[in-house]
């Protein structure tokens, strides 16, 4: 279980990194923490010709609250975000979701942006970004652009990132007054990929629920304040819309069951938060 050969470029700057991507074309990959990519490369599921390492780019190692959002640079690790003292206040949903992201050891190296760029449909960070309506900042040698989370993540491990682009930062909008949050997840074991994850944002008269692990990407739905059986019906419809799939960890039916049940729990928890 050893990776196939590749060239390696340790980029000192964003410019160097995007130049590397331009040169490497479709066969180049960005690596930051490498917690997903490394495993896939060891299994030879992914065989890039060039690995561009951005972990050491000081300009990307940041976390800042500005313009109504928490912006996280591409070199910032998940551990740094989780241990940031302002997290509970600035990004309460992330504060709830982060402990579910991998393990102590993988968070030490895995990056926030890397998880979003990897676009695993079961991951907590893409779900959080989607439900908060966040943004992804992309950069290439020829320019930069910003995509909404819903424009960025297209499906299973698939994003709107072009081969010559890299994610330089993601932006999580700040909580608005009156909003409250909850995060619920069912995984087979602690730290495993979610079978279903539910992130709820509730404010006066409005409910937003994001679900990860069921469709090919996190999916968000908004409702006006619903109660009782109207909420049950809405969750049921959402569950059937998402469909779900069977794998060895869970059946489609169980996934839909969880959408209804932990979806409701998350909403109720947010209401009481």
């Amino acid at each position, binding site marked *: *279980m*050893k990776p196939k050969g590749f060239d390696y470029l340790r980029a000192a700057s964003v410019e160097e990194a995007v130049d590397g991507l331009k040169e490497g074309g479709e066969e180049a990959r960005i690596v930051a923490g490498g917690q997903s990519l490394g495993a896939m490369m060891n299994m030879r599921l992914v065989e890039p010709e060039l690995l561009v390492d951005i972990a050491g780019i000081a300009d990307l190692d940041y976390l800042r609250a500005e313009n109504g959002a928490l912006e996280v640079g591409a070199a910032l690790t998940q551990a740094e975000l989780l241990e940031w003292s302002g997290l509970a206040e600035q990004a309460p949903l992330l504060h709830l979701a982060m402990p579910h992201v991998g393990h102590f050891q993988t968070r030490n190296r895995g990056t926030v942006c890397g998880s979003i760029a990897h676009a695993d449909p079961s991951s907590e960070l893409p779900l959080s970004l989607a439900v908060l309506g966040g943004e992804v900042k992309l950069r290439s040698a020829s320019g930069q652009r910003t995509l909404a989370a819903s424009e960025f993540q297209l499906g299973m491990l698939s994003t709107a990132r072009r081969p010559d682009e890299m994610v330089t930062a993601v932006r999580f909008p700040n909580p608005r007054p009156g909003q409250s949050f909850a995060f619920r997840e069912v995984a087979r*074991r602690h730290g495993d990929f979610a079978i279903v994850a539910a992130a709820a944002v509730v404010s006066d008269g409005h409910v937003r629920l994001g679900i990860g692990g069921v469709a090919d990407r996190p*999916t968000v739905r908004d409702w006006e304040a619903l109660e009782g059986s109207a909420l049950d019906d809405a969750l049921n419809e959402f569950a059937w819309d998402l469909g779900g799939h069977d794998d060895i960890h869970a059946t489609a039916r169980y996934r839909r*069951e969880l959408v209804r049940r932990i979806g409701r729990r998350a909403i109720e928890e947010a209401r009481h938060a």
Partner: protein
Amino acid sequence: MTQGHPQSEKFVGQPVERLEDAALLMGRGRYADDLPIRVGTLHGAILRSPHAHAEIVSIDTSEAEARPGVVAVLTGDEIKELTDPFIMVLKLPLQHWSLAVERVRFVGESVVLVVAEDRYQAEDALEYIKVEYKPLPVAVDPRDAAKEDAPLIHPAAGTNVVSVRNFNYGEPDKAFAEADHTVELTIEFPRNSQTPMEGYVVVADYLPGNNTYDVLANFQGPYTVHPVMARSLRVSGSALRIRTPQDSGGGFGVKQAIFPYVTLMSTASKIVGRPVKWVEDRLEHLSAAVAAPNRVIHLEAAVTKDGKVTAFRFDQLDDYGAYLRAPMPGPLYRPHGCLTGPYFIPNLSVTNRLVLTNKTPSGMVRGFGCPQMYFAIERVMQCIAVELDLDPLDVISRNLIPAGSFPYRSAAGAIYDSGDYPKALEIAVEEGDLKELKERRDKARAEGRLYGIGYCAVIEPGQSNMGYLSTILTAEERRKNPKGGSVSQVTVNVEPLGGVSVTADCMPQGQGQGTALAQIVADELGLKPDQIRVNLEHDTQKDAWSIASGNYSSRFVSSTAIAAHRAAQKVRAKLATIAAQSLNVSEEKVSFGGGQIFATENPDNAIKFHRAAGAAHWHPGSLPTELEAGVREIGVWAPPELDSPSDSDRINTSLTYGFKIDYCGIEIDPDTAEVRIDKYVTMHDTGKMINPLLVRGQIEGSFGWGVGIALYEEFVYAEDGSFLSGTFADYLCPTACEVPKPVILHMETPSPFTPLGAKGIGEGNCMTVPVCVANAVSDALDVRDVRVPLTPARVSAMIHGEEAAPPAGRAAPAAKAEGAGRALAGEGTTLVPAAPEEVWKTLLDAEKLAAVIPGCHRLDVVGDNDYRAEVTLGVGPVKGRFQASVRLAELDAPRSATLSGGLDGPLGSSRGSGRVRLEARDGGTEVSYTYTVEVTGKVAAVGGRMLDGATRMLVRQFFERLAAQVGGPPVHESWWTRLLRALGIGQ
């Protein structure tokens, strides 16, 4: 060394800290992959079958041979020429080789070995080997495989059910005829393995000078397998030198099945003339190393109206996978003597059937057949309680073998050595506080929570009788070559400065046996454990061993430990004789303690231990004439109770029989259906404990694995035989968050059959936890059919009733029963802005089709609407190159066609077909499709979580490109698009 009263300190029975630990904690262990290798050693990597069952049509290794660093490439042809098939326990017309010959029979089977300068290069070359397979029908489920018309795994055997044996003890038919009730249950026990953290390591070096193989391997025995390896290599046992390292990264029985790789690497070394090393990786281990046999048991109990069981009738179907490797079918016969558990049940009928399937060959795994058996017995005991409306613990209690009945001969012949089961039950109830647990349950239930209590009681056998497997033969067959017994050997050496060293035949896998041996020897010689150097590396050319040698069947405390005791006694006797001479007392009046040998009646009359030992080295002429020079004694132990099976098939399968009684409370989350173990009490009578610290370690460890079996672990196969649990993210070993803290209780009833009174303790909790938890879930939910692992999806199906219907106007997808295979199915619709005739022409035009197939580099026509293609496919960063075949059939121009084909590449293989329908609509064509795809090989084993989504994406791409080809832009109308639109986020 403490002075004072020299004989005070004894170490056997004390929780002595492990002597092994310091080195391991400093990172200075010496595991197989840490050890030096000879200059010039090469490294192997193995190409494995992606198919569960296929003929090997051809293998082309030429490109691989030309890759950098590659020295040799071996296939089944070389293996067939240079080795013999492995011998088996049963004489059957099955052949098993170290590389597949002509046919592959399970996903992961070794097909080609590449030997290169390093492992990275060896793996590089694997991608250049071309193997053409012709897939064959598969038999995966044991019941299907046992049917008359099942595909044959080994056609030469003429059947997949390669052994059937019936046994009758007492008068089971009469007991059933007279019973007030018959309670019956069918259980299915899954495939699993305790998967040691260290994989297999083999370094093989062929020595041409004397036609000898020198092999370093982390093999754990039993050494019954040594002749299997030697015979396959066509050499005598002395020409196969197996060396095992000081440290092993876990065994659990699993390291037994390394043996085919010893033969493979030895053969490679002979071919290349250099040592060859191979280190198994995790994907190889999970898919191809070993699994405990999955078993289907139908068990009937004849029961009186007050819940007393008078007879059991077992019908067992044990699944050994693709080959019957030695020492299989051990798991079916090792527990044979214990088929009536800890109960007084005089009548027993057994049918044992042994079936082969297209799965990884079964092998030794901790528990070795017992978790399966007790799952049936203890589930049935609980069912008796439910059906007769009795308390489950009363049912257990009423049937326990009474105190004072020991040694007790069980129906099938086991001689239970000692115990007081009712007392153990009483202690468990009291000290574990069952009353409080029941209150907890009642309170939870009163609050509407899902809470249950489960119980179980088992006998834990220790130290297998090497003759138990011959129970599978008839009495006549056995008479020619009777087998029974178990030999162990330990050497204690005292060097001229009085240092004591010990070597033994136990091949420890982390249990701390070195510490236990040091305690035993220290006590005999009046020393401290840390003064004893125990070296448990083993070398078949230099150390004592026999066929029973090794680490398995919880044998250590009643085998090697006793041999050590005997060797130490011999050393003691010799030194006592020497000392008596200089102390001027008789030998019987000599004691050992505090590093001295002294006159028992006058401790001041003493000589130092090392002086007495030194005399045997420095001045052998001074020794009493009956003594040999030097101090090196071999202790041998072969307990007489282990005889061969009787003519009536009664067999004392093991030497010691411990008793365990467990109970637990579990709670089920009503929303997530997760099972949480609230409290777990486990009571052990394991005879005398040599080291309570080590005993606790064995209990906690087997408990942890028991939790894994109960809730998490299973090797899952799809209906087509593809293997789906190929990573540690798919095969789920519980972590510190999943394993609760058990309450551990003890009592000690010494075994009369072993001089130290100790009984094996290594496995008990992996036998109890699965069924105890299952009984608790059964109690919580009032369900009868409980299968482990109790995954939340399974429990959800039990508690969540019928699913809420889809919203009005929407059809639910066809329900798929659990375990109904992993064929990926899907459907979709695309609107193409061209007439059906246009679309049809595109599908039938090779050039245009090439543009439609995603990632197609090249398309060759091989027949009418029959193509071969080279494609690169993937999702996101995951990509692989495949050889594709594409066929169009059932053509109904321009309305419908069936597209079928397959993919083969380093990532795996897939077969699929789909029906495409074209219908004119709105000036364009509505293209609708349905498909099913089966995927096997690496991508199925490691990427299961992604497969469904990935397949859907690729199929969608095909139709998008079809639309684009006939003049797109595509109007995509899959369920996915509809969903996105419905959610207001459509692209």
